[in-house]
């Protein structure tokens, strides 16, 4: 019986196995200590005890597969949303190509996360789980013309991308994710791609859906309809003020789906790591616009707050996100 072969096999379906165990080294220690005392017949009992301990849920903290499945749910939302782009009218060809590119990325993210999770992955919720009008299944929500109107569609796209960026950022410091460097690095490598998408969607909105040089639009305060490529303050409430405000607001900083010692503040936060950032913090900041200090940092969100936002686009009766509420 090779204990480490077992661990390797488990790692294929549960990338967190080493994180669940105290550490690889401590298993070595346990094994060498007990090896002399246990007979070969008793060894399976010992192994069973190790895993019973490892798989007991830590109260208030999500296991890595829970976080990965949460990410997968968000990627499904994005994937099915971008599949709805084909009936849009009035998009420049460069903008249509960009949406195709993003659609490919989101589908790849779904595929990737399913591969990492293996049999632990949730079932495909299918397109029927979502109502991107925000109507909970009635298709008559505040974004009801999203299939054809690119202004509405891009407002939703920005909202989903910015939410995704905040979600990955907020989940990265959760202890089960930090304990698994492979998962953490993969999550970071998705996080930055979502941020690139967000930046580009914002450029498209800034210049206009039918514009062929989206990078040349000029941002206009309060940045709701002509946003910068980054969040400025709370962007005047986001793409649709009154409906999208929560995407730029504060989260919950305790309970399941939060990281230890992390405070989930609104996007206009200008205190980072205990350092208050204003024009007087450093001589080099003299004359800087006050909005620059919050713009320079994105903020994360906890799982529950993200789930609350995402749940607005799920049909009534589907628990895709409500399980986290």
């Amino acid at each position: 019986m090779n204990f480490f072969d077992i661990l390797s096999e488990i790692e294929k379906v549960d990338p967190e196995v080493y994180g669940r165990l105290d550490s690889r080294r401590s298993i070595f220690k346990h094994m060498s200590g007990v090896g002399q005392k246990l007979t070969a017949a008793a060894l399976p009992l010992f192994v069973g005890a190790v895993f019973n301990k490892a798989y007991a849920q830590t109260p208030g903290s999500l296991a890595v597969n829970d976080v990965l499945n949460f990410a997968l749910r968000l990627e499904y939302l994005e994937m099915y949303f971008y599949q709805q782009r084909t009936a849009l009218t009035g998009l420049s060809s460069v903008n249509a190509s960009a949406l195709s590119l993003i659609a490919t990325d989101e589908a790849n993210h779904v595929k990737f996360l399913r591969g990492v999770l293996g049999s632990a992955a949730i079932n495909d919720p299918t397109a029927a789980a979502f109502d991107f009008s925000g109507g909970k299944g009635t298709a008559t929500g505040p974004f009801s013309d999203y299939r054809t109107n690119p202004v509405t569609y891009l407002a939703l796209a920005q909202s989903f991308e910015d939410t995704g960026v905040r979600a990955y950022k907020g989940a990265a410091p959760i202890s089960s994710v930090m304990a698994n460097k492979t998962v953490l690095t993969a999550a970071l490598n998705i996080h930055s791609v979502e941020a690139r998408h967000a930046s580009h969607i914002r450029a498209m909105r800034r210049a206009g859906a039918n514009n062929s040089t989206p990078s040349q639009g000029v941002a206009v305060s309060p940045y709701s309809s002509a946003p910068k490529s980054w969040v400025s303050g709370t962007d005047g409430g986001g793409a649709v003020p009154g409906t999208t405000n929560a995407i730029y607001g504060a989260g919950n900083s305790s309970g399941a789906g939060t990281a230890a010692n992390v405070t989930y503040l609104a996007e206009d936060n200008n205190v980072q790591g205990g350092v208050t950032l204003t024009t007087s913090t450093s001589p080099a900041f003299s004359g800087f616009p006050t909005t620059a200090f919050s713009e320079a940092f994105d903020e994360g969100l906890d799982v529950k707050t993200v789930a609350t936002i995402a749940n607005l686009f799920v049909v009534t009766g589907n628990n895709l996100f409500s399980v986290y509420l």
Partner: protein
Amino acid sequence: MSHKTLSGPQAPEANLDQPLYTPIKRRSFFMYAGATAGATALVLAGCKDDNNNMPGMVNVGTGDVGVLNYAYALEQLEADFYTQVRMGSYYTSSATAAEKQILDDLYYHEVIHRDFFKAAITAAGATPIKPLTTVYPAGTFSSKSSVLATAKAFEDLGVAAYNGAGQYITTPQYLYIAGKIVSIEARHAAIIRDLVKEGDFVGSDIVDIAGNSLEMSKAPSVVVATANTFLADGSKLNVSGLG
């Protein structure tokens, strides 16, 4: 080589915001230049058991503080770059309104990142690395193509660097702050890439679009191999203590 520090395109006014640093850098340059011949044997001897402290290299250190100093080093490079961009002839005479708005914001953000790290490292009871001296190829700041190509290289490098170093951070709050900054770098990178070529925000050179659509993160040793080409002798980075 070192002479680029003195004769390169970095105008004296580029350092007006840090007047105290220039004399120190010049003095250390002459110190290293004068001591080179005699110190060669010592340098080689030092390499045998510890190449972390080679003269002329800036060692970012180890552990969480090492990662913070690594980030501080890269932010210094970016902040210095955009400081000089705004004094260069492309920005002052030919940039469009949109390009100026973007480059202004990037300048603000990177200077804020740089001085934030300096303050945060100090507040953590650790010692920030020294101010670094940069070098750029002649003419970098005079054409749109060279400014944007360099900006693209720096922003993409920054994203790949933060993503690659996240796994070395052990304190959740530090990882969270790195996450807050890397998505800004990614937002920067995307719009700069779009300025270079519309619709290139997730190019196949930085995102694995044919596979998983993950950003291709880079190890610190790979990142500094590029970063060091923009840093003068005496300011080149040693990241052997990370990871």
